């Protein structure tokens, strides 16, 4: 993968839900080695954008390219190179963690021997040993989220898209997930969405603020901080998002 070509290129991406204009012609790129934090009020279009990049929703206009694959022309190519954690980390509740990961590995094309090795490895990395034979529906929220992470990371994708990966986790678990993301950051292109602004400082190399379907800010956490007189990220976020969209105040 050359560094010149962006891992993810989003151009004039547009999406309506009936009368609601959810995403308004947004464009941005993410390179390998970048961790992009996707911020914005609820209903800003973060999840919709991520769903379109991951190929779950089709855009009304614009293009998404992941590692050179166009998401409309070659959806399977895009999906093969992405690891995606949907919002709420959905998983098949009646399956055990082990079986669920086996299913994912099968779809991701791992052969029997390599599959078992890789599953054992990911279970260790994500700390799922103690629940590997439990059905997913019996797990706590934190463990479920981790199963979702394991699923997204299983094939060691070089593009990772995670919708609120730390939502519902306790402080220790949040710390673990952030450490995990930081450790992977050097060679992957990562997008995470979050409501927790301190996460931007903790893991992101870049932040995009999106509200009412438009990009209001795109820059480093430092630049974001500079938008506030008090050099405070929360304050900067409020300034940017309440200026233009009074409805979200």
């Amino acid at each position: 993968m050359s560094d010149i070509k962006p891992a993810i290129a989003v151009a004039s991406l547009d999406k309506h839900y009936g009368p609601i204009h959810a995403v308004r012609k947004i464009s941005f790129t993410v390179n390998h080695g970048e961790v992009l934090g996707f911020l914005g009020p609820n209903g800003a279009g973060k999840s919709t954008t991520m769903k379109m990049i991951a190929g779950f929703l089709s855009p009304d206009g614009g293009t998404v390219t992941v590692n050179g694959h166009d998401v409309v022309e070659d959806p399977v190519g895009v999906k093969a190179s992405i690891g995606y954690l949907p919002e709420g980390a959905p998983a098949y509740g009646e399956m055990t963690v082990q079986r669920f990961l086996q299913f994912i590995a099968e779809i991701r094309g791992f052969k029997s021997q390599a599959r078992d090795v890789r599953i054992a490895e990911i279970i260790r990395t994500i700390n799922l040993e103690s629940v590997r034979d439990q059905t997913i529906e019996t797990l706590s929220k934190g463990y479920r989220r981790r199963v979702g992470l394991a699923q997204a990371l299983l094939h060691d994708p070089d593009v990772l898209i995670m919708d609120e990966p730390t939502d519902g986790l306790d402080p220790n678990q949040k710390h673990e997930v952030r450490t995990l993301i930081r450790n992977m950051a050097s060679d992957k292109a990562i997008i995470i969405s979050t409501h927790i602004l301190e996460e931007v400082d903790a893991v992101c190399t870049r932040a995009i603020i999106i509200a009412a379907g438009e990009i209001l800010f795109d820059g480093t956490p430092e630049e974001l901080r500079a938008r506030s007189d008090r050099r405070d990220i929360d304050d900067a976020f409020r300034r940017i998002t309440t200026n233009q969209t009074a409805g979200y105040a």
Partner: protein
Amino acid sequence: MRNIKAIMKRELHGYFSTPVAYVFIVIFLFMTGIFTFYVGSFYERNQADLEPFFNFHPWLYLFLLPAIAMRLWSEERKTGTIELLMTLPVTVADAVVGKFLAAWIFSAIALALTFPIWITVNYLGEPDNAVILSAYIGSLLMAGGFLAIGSCVSALTRSQVIAFVIGAAICFLFVLSGFPMVLNLFQAWAPQALIDVIASFSFLTHFSSISKGVIDLRDLVYFVVLILFWLYATVVVIDIKKGG
């Protein structure tokens, strides 16, 4: 192919790790028993064949199979796992076919478990086993038709109840389309050719000839085309829903 197999396996495993499979199979076997022996007067007829057994299959399938099919897609939508499934590197067709095959194999297992009745009739007399085999094949094909219709309806809604009711209603039309109560609706205004076409859609007509041992290529083609058509419709529905 690999994806279809993986999805099918997962789905089948899903049936058997919840009570759904066992409840379905027990009820199915129980009902076929009641229909065959009490309603169908299996013994009183004094004939070594399984006609009373197979005659009731369309009616049993009518409300049992939409119950299997209703969960195929509605449940995925409801629990959000559809987002997981459709962001894995599989095509929509892979997923539709994999899920359908799982439901079909499951109904084949339930059907195969009716074998004691086949043993019974062979013990009591000398039935024409070729006819019985033909009827089993016909029943399985008909089950595939019901499930394919149910799969498409299930893709339309996140509510399993709605999927069940609408699925059963459409299946009912297909079962009855050769009967006067459906044809009369069209008789007044439609040309005879259209009425013939509608009448030829009937599950009953196609099934009854196969179940009597007459394997006509047209009946086989009918069910295969029907299944393919509804599976294709399922793919289309899922693609449209993807557009939001």
